[in-house]
C-alpha cells in the first residue's frame, strides 16, 4: 500500500505574511494519492485547496507565501528539498496542472500548436517540425476537430471548452505524465461542455494510468469523478474517505452541511427549503487553535473552540477530524 502512493503530503503548513498578519492557509495537511487514482479535494473559497495545489508544484508566491513545514513526496522523492532547477524539470513532466480559466494559462500571442510543440522541444529535444507534428497528434487525442488547422489558431480563436482541451493536451504531452492537478477545471464552462471535458479526462486518465488531483467546490463533479475525497475547511482537512462513504455516510458536520447545501441533493425533490449552514467562513487571520468550523456548527461545545480534534478512524480509511465524530445524528 505504502509504496503505491504516487503523491504523499505529510504535515504541510503554508502561511502568507500579509500586512494584517499571518494567514495560515494550510495547516497540518496530510494527503496522498495512489497511482491512477482520482482524489477530489473539496471545499469553499479560502479553504486552502488551491494553495495546496500550488504547494505541490512549488509555485507559492514567496513572499508573501511560505511553506513553513512538511514534506511532499512525489514518486518517492521529497520535492520540497529540490533546487528550483531540479523542480523545473519535474513541472510539466511528472506533474502538470490545469486551471479554471485556460485563457490565463495560455499565452495569447502564440499559436496553440507552438505552445504544445514547446513541450516536445524542451522535454524530448525534438526539432520544431517534428514537435509540431506531435502537437497535431495531441490535439487529435483530446478530440479537437481538424487538428491540422487548429494548431495554427491563437487561444482567443477557440471556445472555452476547446481551450481547456488544449490545456489537457499540454498536460498529457509530458514524457512521464504521473499526476495532473486540475484546479476547478470545468467551473467556467457550460454544463454540456463540462460533461465533455470530464468525460475526456476520465477516458485519458484510464488510458495512461495517471493520478488526478481534482480540486472543486461542486459535489456533483466529485460524485462523477472521484475515487476518494478529502474535504477541507479554512485550511484544515476535516474528513477524508472513499467517494461512496462521503456521500452516504459522512461524519463531519461540515461535510453534511456541504451536501445539504446542494440544491441537486435528492432530498429536495419535494421539499424546497434548503438546510443551509448558517453564518460565514471565518476570517483566516482570526482563527485560533480550535476547530475552524466551530462558529457555524450547531453541535459545537467548549472543547471545539479550544482544541483541534485528533484524527478519528471510522474504519475503511474513513478519517474524520471532529471531537464528536460518530456520536452525532444528522
Amino acid at each position, binding site marked *: 500500500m505504502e509504496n503505491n502512493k504516487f503523491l504523499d503530503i505529510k504535515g504541510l503548513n503554508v502561511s502568507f505574511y500579509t500586512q494584517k498578519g499571518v494567514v495560515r492557509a494550510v495547516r497540518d495537511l496530510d494527503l496522498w494519492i495512489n497511482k491512477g487514482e482520482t482524489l477530489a479535494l473539496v471545499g469553499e473559497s479560502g479553504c486552502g485547496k488551491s494553495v495546496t495545489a500550488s504547494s505541490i508544484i512549488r509555485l507559492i508566491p514567496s513572499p508573501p507565501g511560505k511553506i513553513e513545514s512538511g514534506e511532499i513526496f512525489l514518486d518517492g522523492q521529497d520535492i520540497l528539498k529540490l533546487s528550483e532547477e531540479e523542480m523545473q524539470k519535474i513541472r510539466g513532466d511528472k506533474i502538470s496542472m490545469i486551471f479554471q480559466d485556460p485563457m490565463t494559462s495560455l499565452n495569447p500571442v502564440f499559436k496553440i500548436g507552438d505552445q504544445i510543440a514547446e513541450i516536445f522541444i524542451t522535454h524530448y529535444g525534438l526539432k520544431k517540425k517534428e514537435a509540431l507534428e506531435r502537437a497535431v497528434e495531441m490535439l487529435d487525442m483530446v478530440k479537437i476537430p481538424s487538428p491540422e488547422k487548429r494548431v495554427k489558431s491563437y487561444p482567443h480563436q477557440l471556445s472555452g471548452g*476547446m481551450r481547456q482541451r488544449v490545456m489537457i493536451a499540454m498536460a498529457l504531452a509530458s514524457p512521464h505524465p504521473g499526476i495532473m492537478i486540475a484546479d476547478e477545471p470545468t467551473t467556467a464552462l*457550460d454544463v454540456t461542455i463540462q460533461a465533455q471535458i470530464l468525460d475526456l479526462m476520465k477516458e485519458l486518465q484510464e488510458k495512461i494510468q495517471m493520478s488526478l488531483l481534482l480540486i472543486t467546490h461542486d459535489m456533483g463533479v466529485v*460524485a462523477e469523478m472521484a475515487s476518494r475525497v478529502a474535504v477541507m475547511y479554512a485550511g484544515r482537512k476535516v474528513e477524508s474517505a472513499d467517494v461512496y462513504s462521503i456521500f452516504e455516510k459522512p461524519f463531519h458536520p461540515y461535510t453534511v452541511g456541504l451536501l445539504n447545501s446542494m*440544491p441537486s441533493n435528492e432530498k429536495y425533490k419535494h421539499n424546497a427549503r434548503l438546510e443551509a449552514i448558517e453564518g*460565514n467562513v471565518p476570517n483566516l487571520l482570526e482563527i485560533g487553535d480550535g476547530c475552524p468550523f466551530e462558529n457555524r456548527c450547531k453541535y459545537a461545545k467548549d472543547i471545539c473552540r479550544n482544541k483541534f480534534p485528533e484524527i478519528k478512524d471510522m474504519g475503511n480509511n474513513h478519517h474524520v477530524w471532529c471531537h464528536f465524530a460518530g456520536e452525532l445524528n444528522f
Partner: protein
Amino acid sequence: MEKILEVKNLKKYFEIKKEGLKATESHILKAVDGVSFDVYKGETLGIVGESGCGKSTLGKTILNLHQKTEGEILFHGVDIGNLSPAQMKPYRKRMQMIFQDPYSSLNPRKKISYLLRQPMRVHNLDKEIDVEARIDQLLTIVGLDVKYKNRYPHQFSGGQRQRIGIARALSLNPEFVVCDEAVSALDVSVQAQILNLLMDLQKEFGLTYIFIAHDLAVVELISDRIIVMYLGRIVEEAPKVSLIANRLHPYTKALFEAFPEMNPRNRRVKKIIVGDVPSPIDPPSGCHFHPRCPFAKDICKSHYPDLKEVSPGHKVACWLYE
C-alpha cells in the same frame, strides 16, 4: 391566475461593428429572437440556458434596461417597451433586479445606508416615510445586523453583499423582481442561505420572480415554471413538475443529462452531446440546435419549428413533436 407580465414576440438585436484597417464590418447579433411568454402573479419563472442563449439580455430587456428591437412587453397590460424614461419611472419602482456580482453592483465609496436610501430618494419616498427606520427594517429582513449600516461594501463577505443587493431591490416594495444569476458567484453554503432567503421573501411579500441561472439544480429548486433557451429562442417551456417528469426537447434532455448528479453510484455512461454552442452572430439555419441534435431531420435544417403546446402548459419548439 393574474398575469402581471406578457411578453410577445420580443426581439433584441445588437449591432456588432468590427473595425478593420479598411472597412468596417457590421453584424447583427440576435440575442433575443422572437420570444413570447407570460408571468403570473406570485410565481417564480426560471429561465435556463448556456452562455450566449440570451437569458440575461432577455431579463434586462423585460425591465426596459435594454431598448427592445421589436415586440411587446406588457406589464399589467401597459407596453413599457415604448415608454419614455419619465413615463417609465413609476413602473421602475414596481420592478427591480438583483444582479450576479455583488462586488460590482454596489458603489464601493458609499456606505450601506446610502446605498439603501438612494432608491427611496429617487422615487421621492423620503417625504412620505421614515427612511432611516425603513433601512433598519430592510437590513433586518435580509438577515443583516442593523449596526452594519455605516459600513462600506468591501467590509462584507460575498453573501452579505448579495443580501445588501437584495435589500436594495426590496427597498421600493416591488412586486416583480428579476434575479439574474443572483447566487452564481457565491460559495455553495452561502448560496443555500441566499436561496432560502429569496424563497422566504417571496412568501412574505408575495413577490413574483424571474429567476435566470445556468445552474439547473438551482432553477429546478426555486421555480414553479421553467423556460429553456438556446441561441436567443425558447426551445421548451413547462411547469417544473412536468419538465422533470418529461423533458421533450432534445436540447433540454442533453442539458439535464449533462448536469452531474449527486450520487456516485449513478455514474452511468451518459449521452453527451458533441460540439460547442454556435456563435449567436451566425446561428445555424432552421432549428439552431440541429447541428448538435442526434434526431435532426431534413426539415430541421431549413425551418425553425414553432413553440407548440403539447400538454397543458408544456410547450416545445421541435419538429419531433409536430
